[in-house]
């Protein structure tokens, strides 16, 4: 990797070989990067690439297992966010951590106890302390304004002013534009540039390719927890970055045989909610519809809306003879929809109940006579499907929490196979499970398609989507940015649509931010 000489000599921040494991999952694997003074350095990567873990390491929120962080060439121990602040690292989280019922001045001065020698609040002294920083970020309202009265964009300015007031030389911003209007984005970018001119570095974490190309001096790409490369924004194309994000493994994934028919099972038209903007698509019998998108694109929100879990959802959802959005999960199930949620522990399983009880929970009324569960029928129905799933458990009466992640996922899938819905929405069904369990899940998807069911598959693993899907719908910030037939889909095309870089959108609807 060729770095400019002066930058190599004088990095403000240098990350060396940082690794972090969560349980068995390797979130960061020997990542190194450098940020020069005044540099606007973008950090980009697909889902699970390690961007947020790396930011958290730099911010002192997460302690790395290996590697070190150098500031001004000297090793720095950053054990807590407070340490990070002392070292001049400020963090602007996506969810701004301001005290909304306090005033702007109180928020800016919150950790600068030396402002107040007395324990009485002196608002004039507070204002005097805050004003220069507020002016620097272009915040012109009185500093006695309560934070809850501000817009998101103004709150962000306050957060940046606070970081500056604590002497930040490097400000880390995590998806700072995700809830900003276009004017606010322009204002923020102006501020970032002026920070850069004053020698304050910015590490900018974002999904938005166009913004990154517009604001960043340098771009570092991560993939699967590893460092891929750093490029100067001036001489890089979106295609090149996408190629780095996706990786060189272009081996054609074998696509499963298609079982798609012409019979439409589910029609969605103009489905909107707080997070979704006019989503339309069909699912046909025997079809696997893949859904791609980066975190926050609205994939899980789409599942929630279809399944009656989002009261703000509106639009047409035609299935089971009805055309409105199902008002509740019960109603959605009655119409022939199923949802295997993303977080199996939080939204899926009863961890203290047995394998058998978890698998039959949604068909209990079927198994009961006059409210009494027919034990024999319950055992035979659950055993049938659990054996088909090759579930490994001490017994079907074992508590679900004693199972491995892959087997837990199989229990959850079994529940829905027993319900046997016409269309099953699978949200990240292979996350955190081992290779053989993944194959079993693919087998289930294939089997469902063969038997004429419709499957909606949400996944962050593009090879998995390419392998299983007949079509792939790409979402970006709540909108459909592309619908690709599996024959024409590639990881690059999907990533381009998911990051919404214009050149790759092929006439698909564009995001007008």
């Amino acid at each position, binding site marked *: 990797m060729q770095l400019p000489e002066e930058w190599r000599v004088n990095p403000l921040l240098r990350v060396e070989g940082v690794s972090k494991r969560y*349980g*068995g*999952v*390797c979130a960061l694997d020997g990542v190194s990067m450098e940020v020069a003074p005044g540099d606007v350095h973008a950090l980009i990567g697909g889902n699970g690439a390690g961007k947020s873990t790396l930011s958290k390491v730099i911010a002192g929120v997460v302690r790395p297992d290996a590697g070190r962080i150098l500031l001004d060439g000297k090793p720095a121990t950053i054990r807590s966010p407070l340490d990070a602040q002392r070292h001049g690292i400020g963090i602007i989280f996506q969810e701004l951590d301001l005290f909304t019922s306090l005033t702007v001045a109180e928020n800016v001065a919150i950790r600068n106890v030396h402002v107040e020698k007395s324990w009485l609040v002196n608002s004039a002294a507070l204002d005097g302390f805050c004003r220069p920083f507020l002016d620097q970020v272009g915040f012109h309202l009185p500093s006695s304004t309560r934070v809850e009265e501000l817009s998101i964009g103004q709150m962000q300015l306050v957060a940046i002013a606070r970081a500056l007031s604590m002497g930040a030389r490097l400000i880390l911003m995590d998806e700072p534009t995700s809830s900003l209007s276009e004017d606010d984005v322009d204002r923020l970018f102006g501020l970032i540039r002026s920070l850069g001119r004053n020698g304050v570095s910015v590490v900018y974490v974002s999904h938005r390719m166009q913004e990154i190309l517009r604001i960043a001096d340098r771009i570092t790409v991560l993939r*699967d*927890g590893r460092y891929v490369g750093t490029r100067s924004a001036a001489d890089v194309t979106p295609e090149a970055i996408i190629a780095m994000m996706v990786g060189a*493994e272009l*081996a054609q*994934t074998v696509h499963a045989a298609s079982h798609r028919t012409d019979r439409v099972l589910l029609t969605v038209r103009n489905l909107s909610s707080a997070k979704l903007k006019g989503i339309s698509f069909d699912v046909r019998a025997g079809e696997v519809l893949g859904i791609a998108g980066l975190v926050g694109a609205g994939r899980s929100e789409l599942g929630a809306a279809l*399944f009656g*879990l989002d009261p703000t959802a509106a639009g047409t959802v035609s299935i089971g003879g009805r055309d409105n959005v199902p008002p509740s*999960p*019960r109603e*959605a*199930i009655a119409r022939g929809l199923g*949802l295997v*949620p993303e977080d199996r522990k*939080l*939204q*899926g*399983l*009863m*961890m*203290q*109940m047995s394998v058998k*009880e978890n698998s039959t*929970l*949604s068909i*209990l*009324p079927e198994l*009961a006579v006059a*409210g*009494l*569960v027919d*034990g024999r029928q319950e055992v035979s129905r659950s055993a049938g499907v659990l054996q088909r799933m090759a579930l*490994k*458990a*001490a017994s079907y009466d*074992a508590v679900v*929490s*004693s*199972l*491995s*992640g*892959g*087997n837990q996922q199989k229990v959850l899938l079994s*529940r829905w196979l027993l319900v046997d819905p016409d269309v099953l929405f699978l949200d990240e069904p*292979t996350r*955190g*499970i*081992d*290779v053989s*369990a*993944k194959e079993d899940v693919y087998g289930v998807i294939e089997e469902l398609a063969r038997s004429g069911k419709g499957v909606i598959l949400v996944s962050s*693993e593009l*090879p998995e989507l390419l392998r299983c899907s007949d079509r792939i719908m790409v979402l970006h910030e709540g909108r459909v940015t592309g619908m690709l037939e599996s024959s024409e889909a590639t990881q690059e095309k999907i990533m381009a649509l998911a990051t919404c870089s214009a050149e790759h959108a092929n006439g698909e609807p564009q995001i007008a931010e």
Partner: protein
Amino acid sequence: MQSEQIRAAKAEPAAPKRAAKWQSPLAYLRRLQSATGLIGLIILAAIISPRANDGSVVFFQVGNITDIIRQVSEIGIIALGMTYVILSGGIDLSVGSTLALSASITAMLLMRWSPGFGFAEHIVLAVAAALGASAAIGFVTGLVISRLNIQPFVVTLATMIGVRGFARWLTSNTNIDFGFGQDVSAVFSNVGSHKPVVIGTLAVLALIFAFVLGRTVFGRYVRAIGDNEKAAAYAGVPIARVKAWVYTLCGLLAGLAGVIHAAQCHQGNPNDGVAYELEAIAAVVIGGTSLSGGKGSIGGTILGTLIMGILTNILRLKMVDTNVEFMIKAVIIVLAVWAQSRGKPS
């Protein structure tokens, strides 16, 4: 993809092999903690219990044992309904007030109402009215909790206050004493405080509640909701309906305990039953039911009830001061819950 697979493979160690079937006796005792506690307490009772004149242990006299069960029966009946509520992830603070209301209604209808037909019909109607009112209170509580989505603690705290007020207002805040001799209230009181009736009611209800919890769709739903309400919603469990039923049953049992209370006390007192909710919750918790829901059993609750009862009994046989008794119970509650939470993955 390959690296992805390797990463995932590392992420998921094979399911831990189940330990051999053999369990050390200690582990076995730990699993059946409340039973162990009960046995220990009985042994302790046998040792410290005073002796009767003929040298026999007072604690083990049939009269003493049945007395204990009769004394705990009201709390025991309430605790059955409370077990369902706590299993579903909730709490019901209103049962003491409901008991008082039920006892008051029973007494009012027996003493101040002369319907002009037989004693049996009169008693049945009075009891039915008391139970109906109690169940209605539980039903409304359940509806408010599930439909308006307010915390059970807050809703039942309000019910506790409101129902107490209602009971006092209804009776003008006076005891309604039962009559004697051939009065309908005296007959009711005789039957309703008869040991076999009281103990039998508790036993039959315990069996029914254990059966419903273990074998019916409703019982399964109760546990599922308490284990993981969000997942239960995703699975299509009718949460609002189940919760309404759970609180209705809890109210109904509190009402039944109130009827028995009236019979045993020979009066309807709108100020009775204070802190009964806490004793019932203590019995449930000592019985191993988790306050965070999803885990527990009726059997455990019965054991918990008996533990509290026996403790009271031996302390009173030893003439221990009532206030000291409270302090000892406080320690027991904390110890029991601490022992049960040990060695478990949170």
